[in-house]
């Protein structure tokens, strides 16, 4: 499985969500088939809610991990 990383640190809502949505739309087929995972690095706390909520509504599986000074939101095929 390919992991595609996007560093959106420094961006705030709603830009963070728009960037994440754009990538989820672009890689829709590969995401649904489980070929890729998308990982977004963000230091915007709101994005750890808005991006996972939107991804879950689109049927994707989401996990959020806290790193030193930022978060990593990983989006992958849902169950």
């Amino acid at each position, binding site marked *: 499985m390919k992991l595609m990383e996007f560093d959106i640190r420094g961006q705030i809502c*709603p830009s963070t*969500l*728009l960037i994440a949505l754009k990538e989820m739309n672009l890689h829709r087929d590969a995401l649904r088939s489980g070929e890729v995972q998308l990982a977004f690095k963000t230091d915007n706390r*709101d994005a750890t809610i*808005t991006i996972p909520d939107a991804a879950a*509504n*689109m*049927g994707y599986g989401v996990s959020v991990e806290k790193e030193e000074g930022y978060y990593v939101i990983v989006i992958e095929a849902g169950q």
Partner: protein
Amino acid sequence: MSIGKKIKDLLGGEGDDDTARRELEKLAASERAAFTYIRRKVNQLLTIMGTLPLRPEELSDQTLLELDPIGIIADSFEQVLEHLNETNEKLRFAEEELQAIIATAGVGIIVVDSKMRIQAFNLKAKELFFRASSDVRGKPCHVALCGSDSPPPECTFEKVMATRIGIQLTNWVYNERHYDVAGTPIKNKYGDITKVVLIYTDITDRKRTEDTLRGNEEMYRTIFDNASDLILSLAPDGSFRYANQAWCRALGYRREEMGDLALPDLIHPDHRDASLAFVERVLAGKKNGRFATVFLSKRGEALPLEGHVSCSLVNDSPSLVCFILHPRRDP
């Protein structure tokens, strides 16, 4: 060249600078209105997606068009709708499955709303309670089921509503049949109880069997306690399960003391090994046999006994060893 001249040229050289300026202002106003509309719609969509609206300084009009947030959100909504359709299909399938299970369940299931009105019931509930009734949907449960104007004192529904948790009522009697009743609340997202599911398990046959067994047990206990033979039963691990009064009298123990004793404690040391080996053989599959040994009473007196030992099996495993003994008769 002035803007007015440019516009005039675009308009085919007709008119003057004022006309061109007015056209330009109209165009600019129209463009501002278009961008205002686009920003309003973008913000509306962003709010629906659960995020903040765009700040005016965040994106220039040109960047707004290049980023195409309406297109991004429209594509995202397409995925949301696709996921909703998949979820609806799974829910529809799950509901059909659930309906089939409820319809064929061997227990009566009745769903009542928070006002105690019957909303739904399965075939078994109709067979148990509403066989002669026309449709009872919408009727209060206590009217349709209990036949009373008010709920009975031990009403499962009322207990569920009062405690707000699942409740089990055992041995509820209806038309001379016995039921275990389980009531489970269904709550909405605010925690209010909207429905209560009542499940009725007919335990009449089980209860009759239990009553019969209890009666038989009492009868055999009376017979055993009045028998002159010494009757004793042991679990496979050697612990005492039962001793009749003749046994207790002969060995000098009260019945409640037997729980602290093990078989080896009661056998005379000279006969202990042979007797225990015999019991082992009975447990190993030799299901019954003549048995003779010397027991020790509580006061230490030797008590020669003989009789019969048998082993009960459950699923091919020993469950009980039973001794029926009497004082040994001298040859």
